[in-house]
């Protein structure tokens, strides 16, 4: 029965899109059916006597990291038919029936050797039905690199199953009031290791990542009014856009050292294209009224933005070369904060209805909006993960505003991290492949 369903599953997938022999994950709605995966506690590699807590910790970390993607159903280790730490690494030694019988379609086994300050880790991904190894990797490095090794393997697993590298090198910037001021913080994609990026005791808002992840642009009141600061992450280079009036909510052009932002020095709030050092290249919107919150299509040919040109704030799309503007949202009186999916096909945004903000996603072709958050107070500031599979957003569902993650289809909503104060305006970074 299970074999049949898997075969059926494989047949429905368009083969052209596959990286693997067939797709394990349906990219049209991968969260409809989670793949059951078994990750037994790693074994100690033959030449070492690695202690059980270390093995446990490493296998738990792998499990949590993969679970974050929303693609998998992690099978309970209590149901496994082998003892912890005894799962073999080599295909012929694995009794795949043990795994098929508990419902596992994928299996990851690992071996670890931790000696002094060096760790060696071998990890294998298997298809339990085919009894076949899909991915096998060996990592060696200082003990502090364990998390990095596990993320690298997760990236291999996701690449094998979906054809893209996933999110494991990405970061999330956000605002936190923990210090008493609104400062920008940066954490890993999974909420790990939050660090403060600004420390100017002013109001800092709307962080935006450059495509190469080397710069963050943001709005700050450092000089008493909203200006845009373009700051290098590692290094001291920085520029300021401090025109008269507001300098608001920058958005980097994909793959270029240029950005779009709202400036009001002309007396009207319009979106301009600027160089990465803050020089105006050209004006992108001309209609009277507020034109704000630009977000670029992945090919850099269009922007979606918010305008109140028709009376209430709505989202529009402008083709930069033709100048053609189309209205995207028609439901509700207050649609703002668009973010264009890195896959190009959808835009997520915030809609205020009956006094409550909720997150929606709209397919650009069909123009059909779908609501992703419900009955959980205010949900705002959606930001796509670099592979377009997840959305970070802020919510007041637990009282103070905090950062949450959900899948692109609104499932698996969970808090990203717990910090003192309130957190909002999350912005997910692009992926970096050469870390």
């Amino acid at each position: 029965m299970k074999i049949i369903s898997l075969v059926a599953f494989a047949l429905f997938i368009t083969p052209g899109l596959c990286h693997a022999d067939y797709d394990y994950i349906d990219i049209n709605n991968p969260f409809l059916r989670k793949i059951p995966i078994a990750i037994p506690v790693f074994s100690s590699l033959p030449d070492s006597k690695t202690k059980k807590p270390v093995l446990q910790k490493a296998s738990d970390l792998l499990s949590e990291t993969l679970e974050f993607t929303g693609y998998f159903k992690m099978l309970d280790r209590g149901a496994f038919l082998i003892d912890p730490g005894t799962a073999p690494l080599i295909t012929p030694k694995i009794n795949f029936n043990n795994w098929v019988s508990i419902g596992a379609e994928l299996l990851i086994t690992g071996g670890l050797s931790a000696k002094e300050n060096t760790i060696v880790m071998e990890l294998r991904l298997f298809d339990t039905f085919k009894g076949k190894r899909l991915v096998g990797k060996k990592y060696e490095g200082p003990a502090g690199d364990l998390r990095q090794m596990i993320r690298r393997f997760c990236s291999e697993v996701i690449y094998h199953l979906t054809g893209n590298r996933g999110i494991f090198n990405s970061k999330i910037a956000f605002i936190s009031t923990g210090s008493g001021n609104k400062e920008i913080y940066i954490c890993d994609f999974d909420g790990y290791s939050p660090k403060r990026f600004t420390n100017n005791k002013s109001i800092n808002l709307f962080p935006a990542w450059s495509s190469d992840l080397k710069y963050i642009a943001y709005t700050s009141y450092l000089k008493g009014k909203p200006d845009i600061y373009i700051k290098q992450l590692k290094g001291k280079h920085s520029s300021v856009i401090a025109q008269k009036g507001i300098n608001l909510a920058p958005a980097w052009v994909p793959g270029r050292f240029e950005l779009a932002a709202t400036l009001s020095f002309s007396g009207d709030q319009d979106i301009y294209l600027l160089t990465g050092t803050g020089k105006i290249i050209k004006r992108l919107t001309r209609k009277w009224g507020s034109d704000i919150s630009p977000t670029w299509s992945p090919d850099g040919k269009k922007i979606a933005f918010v305008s109140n040109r028709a009376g209430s704030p709505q989202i529009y799309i402008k083709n930069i070369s033709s100048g053609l503007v189309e209205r995207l949202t028609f439901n509700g009186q207050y649609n703002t904060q668009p973010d264009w999916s890195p896959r190009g096909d959808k835009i997520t945004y915030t809609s205020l209805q009956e006094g409550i903000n909720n997150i929606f996603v709209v397919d650009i072709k069909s123009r059909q909006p779908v609501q992703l958050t419900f009955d959980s107070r205010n949900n705002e500031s959606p930001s796509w993960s670099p592979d377009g599979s997840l959305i970070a957003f802020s919510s007041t569902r637990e009282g103070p505003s905090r950062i949450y993650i959900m899948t692109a289809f609104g499932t698996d909503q969970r808090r990203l991290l717990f910090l003192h104060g309130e957190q909002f305006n999350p912005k997910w970074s692009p992926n970096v492949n050469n870390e």
Partner: protein
Amino acid sequence: MRKKLWIGLVMLFLIPVFLFTVSCAQQEVKDTEETATEPEKAPEETATEASKEVEQPTEDMSAEERAALAARNMFMSEDIYFEFDKSTLDSMSQDILSRKADWMRDNTAVVVSIEGHCDERGTNEYNLALGEKRAESTKSFLVDLGIEAYRISTVSYGEERPVDTGQNEEAWAKNRRAHCLIP
């Protein structure tokens, strides 16, 4: 008969589960309330800033000086209020601004800054833009009454500096404001 027994058994199991979830839920609410009241320092800051602006009269002041100070304090303490997502001035605001213009005409050396603010509803990018519209429409009205434009600067704080952090119409109405201050 058998079925009833089953339902009974299920209920026996479910009722404690419900009780448990209810007690958990209450505890959660309590937790969040505690954390909610604790962190945000921003409102305190704005409050101290506001009190700094308004000078108290001292004992050695003449009646004339006292009146002048009272007028100055009135200029700064009377805010202009707006409807949700609007930057238009109603007749009450126009009356207040006419008085402010009179005072500025009598005090030609004074330059003022107008802050535009919004309530927390909606989203903060749009509110930052809206706050500027509010500050600018307030400024335009004063300029139309003959006040020199160079004497008035504007800054938008959007929803970032509420005077009242309450989440009700009363608090929101107080936050949708243009505030004049003498730097």
